[in-house]
């Protein structure tokens, strides 16, 4: 009897595998999933980075997206934060202690809840609290829950990080493509390439911090001015990276083979050149997100970034650093958040590089370090 059951199951499994193998989209998905799983199992660090990034992304979406969604659906903003980022809660002594306690119990679980929102009453406990059951990471000097503030800063920092790096990638990458692909000796393309590179050099000369201060002084402080400052100093790195890669790829034999097969120049550019460009570019992008988060937090720490009352990791580090000797939790929480975010993106970037290079996917199971595509340029001079 058990025999028949096992045979039936194996036949079913075989049938499912056949069906999937025949369907092009499904089999592609399955192959992708299998290779991702294989990468993850061989490289625990990559897995850790991947998991943390995914968790952060989901948390950021929920933190930022649930309140308006709740407003839309239920008429009141929903939230996964145990407390609002600016919520000031009372301790014991207040008009309706039971309600407050019930609210606290209900909201100490990270389930969507309807936020009480805002300042409950004029009476506040202006005292920093250590981690307790209700406040997992304690509160800050105004009674605001640390965990909520750290989580509330998550979408802001993530969006700024990936946004700045993304815009730099698009703008810088596009310019790098132009500067690299049509750069031939004694041609218009060469002149344009020189112009682009020297223009990029101008912006490379500025340190992000100094430029942020200057822009803050002229345009006023705030998130937008600091973002503009970082953007201005960030895009040239991508120009250099992309141009270097394009120059190498341009001379590869497979590009000439594609040309010999009659592929038009534009299609070569977008299909062959760009696809081989992606590996270092995506790795650099992931690493860059971490770096931008750190830079933005630093700028906010100094005071020219996000406004002081906004929940932002750099801001929080600056506000709470005075309490370090006795109450290290707020600073630690904010600092750890920055660290974890940057680390997760670094690990993910490394893992992505291994994953994207088809050649090193084999080596992944031995967890070996991959190499870049060997640049053997053979041209008509070979004989």
């Amino acid at each position, binding site marked *: 009897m058990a025999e028949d059951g096992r045979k039936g199951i194996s036949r079913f499994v075989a049938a499912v595998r056949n069906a999937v193998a025949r369907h*092009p989209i499904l089999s592609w998905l399955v192959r992708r999933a299998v290779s991702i799983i294989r990468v993850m199992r061989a490289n625990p660090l990559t897995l850790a980075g991947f998991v943390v990034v995914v968790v952060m992304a989901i948390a950021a979406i929920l933190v930022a997206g649930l309140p308006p969604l709740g407003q839309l659906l239920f008429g009141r903003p929903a939230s996964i934060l145990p407390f609002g980022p600016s919520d000031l809660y009372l301790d014991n002594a207040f008009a309706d202690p039971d309600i407050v306690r019930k609210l606290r119990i209900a909201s100490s679980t990270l389930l969507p809840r309807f936020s009480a929102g805002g300042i409950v009453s004029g009476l506040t406990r202006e005292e920093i609290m250590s981690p307790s059951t209700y406040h997992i990471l304690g509160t800050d000097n105004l009674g605001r829950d640390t965990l909520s503030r750290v989580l509330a800063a998550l979408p802001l920092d993530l969006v700024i990080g990936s946004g700045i790096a993304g815009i730099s990638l698009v703008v810088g990458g596009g310019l790098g493509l132009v500067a690299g692909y049509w750069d*031939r*000796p*004694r*041609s218009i393309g060469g002149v344009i390439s020189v112009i682009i590179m020297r223009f990029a050099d101008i912006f490379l000369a500025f340190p992000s911090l100094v430029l942020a201060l200057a822009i803050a002084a002229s345009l006023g402080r705030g998130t937008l001015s600091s973002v503009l400052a970082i953007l201005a100093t960030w895009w040239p790195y991508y120009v250099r990276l992309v141009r270097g890669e394009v120059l190498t790829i341009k001379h*590869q*034999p*497979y590009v*000439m*083979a*594609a*040309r*010999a*097969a*009659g*592929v*038009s*120049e534009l299609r070569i550019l977008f*299909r*062959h050149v760009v*696809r*081989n460009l992606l590996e270092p570019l995506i790795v650099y992008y992931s690493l860059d997100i971490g770096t931008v988060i750190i830079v933005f937090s630093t700028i906010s720490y100094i005071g020219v970034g996000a406004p002081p009352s906004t929940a932002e990791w750099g801001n929080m580090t600056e506000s709470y650093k005075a309490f370090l000797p006795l109450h290290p939790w707020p600073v630690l929480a904010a600092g750890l958040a920055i660290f974890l975010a940057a680390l997760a993106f670094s690990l993910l970037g490394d893992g992505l590089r291994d994953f994207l290079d*088809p*050649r090193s996917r084999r080596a992944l199971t031995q967890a070996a370090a991959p190499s870049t*595509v060997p640049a*053997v340029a*053979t*041209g*008509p*001079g*070979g*004989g």
Partner: protein
Amino acid sequence: MEPLLRVSHLTLDYETKGGRVRALRDVSFTMHEGRVLGIVGETGCGKSTLGHAIARLVPEPPARVHAGRIEFRGNDLLKLPKWKMPAIRGTGIGMIFQEPINSLNPAYRIYDQVAEAVRIRRLREAGKNPTATFGQEGFDYSRPRMPTTSEILSKPLRPSLGRRGVASLVSSKELRKEVLDFLRLVRINDPETILDLYPHELSGGMRQRIMIAIALSGRPSLLIADEPTSALDVTIQAQVLTLMKELMDEVRTSILFISHDLAVIAEMTDDVGVMYAGRIVEFGPVAEVFESPRHPYTKALLRSIPNRRKAEGALPSLPGSVPNLLRLPTGCVFHPRCPLVREACKEPPGPELVMGTDTGSVGGHLAACYFSNEVKALP
């Protein structure tokens, strides 16, 4: 009948910091449909440059065509603007390269790469690509000319593409079928298994077959093979050459076979041109050139092939070395190493590629030597 390819007095220079390197000097030859022409010579003699120059794949800024014409089906390729060349490549002129691992894009699977070539050809055959088929129609795009009535009537009407339009030409089902057909054409037994593989997951012989499949899927009239087997070991080389010979019978493509291996040339080609320092020094039917060479360089080349049976004695070789292309000898390029050298050989310009004055050479056996009659007497 119009020759498929006629190269006349092609001279190509590379502008380098050290000076002007004349990679091709006054190269002229003719190729007819269905024939295989071999170009043989030492490393650095310019044969690869010649192959690339015919398809205009030599990067133009450092290289410059100084003089000459390349007439493909009667149309001068050098007069065409560069952006029109992709129309000819693939379906008119195809090319396979020396290192198969480097000639396939490592980021794409085999199916994608072969399908790309098939897709290009199908679009061109339907006239959907603005750079329409050139080589197959034999249409003259370099000079504006109205087609004659008979030409218009002789071409089949293009069938309407149906509701799906261009997508029906490049539908994945049809593409896949054609890709599999071309892979079977190059004798890959189970093509379905390799479709999803990447180039680095295949052996060298397999990769070279795939390159041949990609080149043939454009159905070119002229296939330029630039040392296709030099990167393969001898057994795989034999397989690929056998495959190419069989394909020559199946597919009516003329081949320009470039190699440094005299044995391969002897086996595969109908006519041969021997190159030295950028010039063709001898040209003719391969049996005649190899049995009775009429240029001292060819004779020396043939003599220097190691012979298994004659095991004793020193290996005969040519004295001297290939000249520096920046400082070529005056007159005949070969004269510093030639056993027949006379005063006349040093005077510019050097000897032209001409028919011999002695009898017995029919079918255009040419040699660039003033004293080609005496070559027979050389040891």
